[in-house]
């Protein structure tokens, strides 16, 4: 026997109906509420005021949740600071790629400032950006997949393995540089994201080497990799010199002193680590 006041189905569907008001002998299948335009049966779930309340609460909860996520995300990953590194345009990217491959003719490596804040990469070719490293990383993973595919060693899991190992080594490199900067107590305005950007520039050379190797064979791979390694070495030295060394040493004058020597060694080590990584990550792709 159907028990109206306590029947959960009844209560759910017509929860607005008071228990005593058991005027229905059978289930109410009509739309009991707001969907006056729909007019179809079966709208009762949406039109029920309790479920309206639930929906309103749910959507406000979702908005609140979203705000919390945004706020916390901003605390861990500073979105506005990241936006600075992506404020690039095509001309900048073209010039920067040219610099990464051929840094020998460039004269002025200073980052220009505008009232204490560095100028956006769009306006200054010396400023670091994150677009090139990000695109370089993704392209590297895809080109590695392509290279493995031509050797018939491809599988989608391998792509993930390549991507994660490259990412982990990148993070470790950035952490190592940060640690060494801390130990040497260099007073510099290099931020973590700057270091990430500089470490990411080597992917460009790696991609050039691998593509050359895929198209023209092993000798081409070695030649292009050699060229790119030299280029990135010079690029890093010239860029970091201005940031890490003191003013005088950066201008090229000989400054004696243990601290400056230490900083010079640090710069050389960071710059030398790049070609090593470049070779390590690409040699197994060209067989």
């Amino acid at each position, binding site marked *: 026997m159907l028990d109206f006041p306590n029947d959960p189905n009844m209560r759910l569907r017509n929860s607005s109906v008071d228990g005593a008001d058991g005027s229905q002998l059978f289930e109410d299948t009509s739309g*009991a509420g707001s969907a*006056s335009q729909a007019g179809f049966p079966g709208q009762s779930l949406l039109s029920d005021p309790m479920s309206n309340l639930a929906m309103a609460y749910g959507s406000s909860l979702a908005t609140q949740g979203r705000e919390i996520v945004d706020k916390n995300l901003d605390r861990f990953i500073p979105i506005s600071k990241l936006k600075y590194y992506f404020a690039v345009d095509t001309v900048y990217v073209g010039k920067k790629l040219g610099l990464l491959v051929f840094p020998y003719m460039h004269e002025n490596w200073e980052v220009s400032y505008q009232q204490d804040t560095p100028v956006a990469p769009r306006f200054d070719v010396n400023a670091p950006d994150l677009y090139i490293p990000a695109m370089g990383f993704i392209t590297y993973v895809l080109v590695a997949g392509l290279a493995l595919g031509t050797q018939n060693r491809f599988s989608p899991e391998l792509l993930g393995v390549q991507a994660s190992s490259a990412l982990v080594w990148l993070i470790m490199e950035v952490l190592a540089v940060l640690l060494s900067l801390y130990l040497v107590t260099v007073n510099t305005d290099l931020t973590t994201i700057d270091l990430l950007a500089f470490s990411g520039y080597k992917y460009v050379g790696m991609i050039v080497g691998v593509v050359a190797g895929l198209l023209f064979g092993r000798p081409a791979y070695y030649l292009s990799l050699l060229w790119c390694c030299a280029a990135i070495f010079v690029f890093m030295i010239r860029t970091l010199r201005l940031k890490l060394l003191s003013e005088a040493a950066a201008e090229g004058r000989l400054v004696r002193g243990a601290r400056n020597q230490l900083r010079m060694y640090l710069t050389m080590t960071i710059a030398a680590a790049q070609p090593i990584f470049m070779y390590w990550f690409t040699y197994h792709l060209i067989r």
Partner: protein
Amino acid sequence: MSGFDNFNTDFYQSSYSVDDQNQGGYGYSNTENPYNKPYGQYDYSQPMAYASPGMMPPQQPYTGQIFQPTQTYTPSQSQSMYSSSFDDEPPLLEELGINFDHIWQKTLTVLHPMKVADGSIMNETDLAGPMVFCLAFGATLLLSGKIQFGYVYGISAIGCLGMYCLLNLMSMTGVSFGCVASVLGYCLLPMILLSSFGVLFSLQGMMGVILTAAIIGWCSFSASKIFISALAMDGQQLLVAYPCALLYGVFALISVF
């Protein structure tokens, strides 16, 4: 029911116009006599009466008796309201949000990469067209014997997420995920041409390589053109086109190999 006047431009502003007056009268805001829906009074012989009894003013106290159908509202009034609501209710496609005209317009924008795109066409997030294109792409792959729907969906999801992050970081105004998914889905249309071509001819020769490169270029060019015009980014078209080209390159890899 505001959407019926300006059907073409403000299509999506016609939402289901919830009858707020009746909403306000319902249970949680009205403590006096909230729950008085005389359900027993339906006239089931008339299909029109299926519409809600909420049309009636909810302030009416229930004066009937239990198990006895009583008329506490004038049926004629409610029926006329029901009949008008049934006639005035929006057609099914509009309720679902599928506007064939807009879908066709957007498809034409993709198919003419040289034509300048209108920035406002992407104001409505329309995922029906992209869904159709994804399914068509999977179907043409199926025709060449590759059952790889999973890869198509997975790659499109990851690609959309990546583009969403990148575009939000690169543009001044943000962009919503639905908009990104919609644009990328629409520009998948030339890829369907490639895979249907691959059903008949092998794509692994020199001609296949050239065709693949051309189609990837076409897809990414249209996608970047739409993004640039919708987000008002200047001097960044190639920068937006490159990640799109990577994404469509992966799709092309699926259809070629």
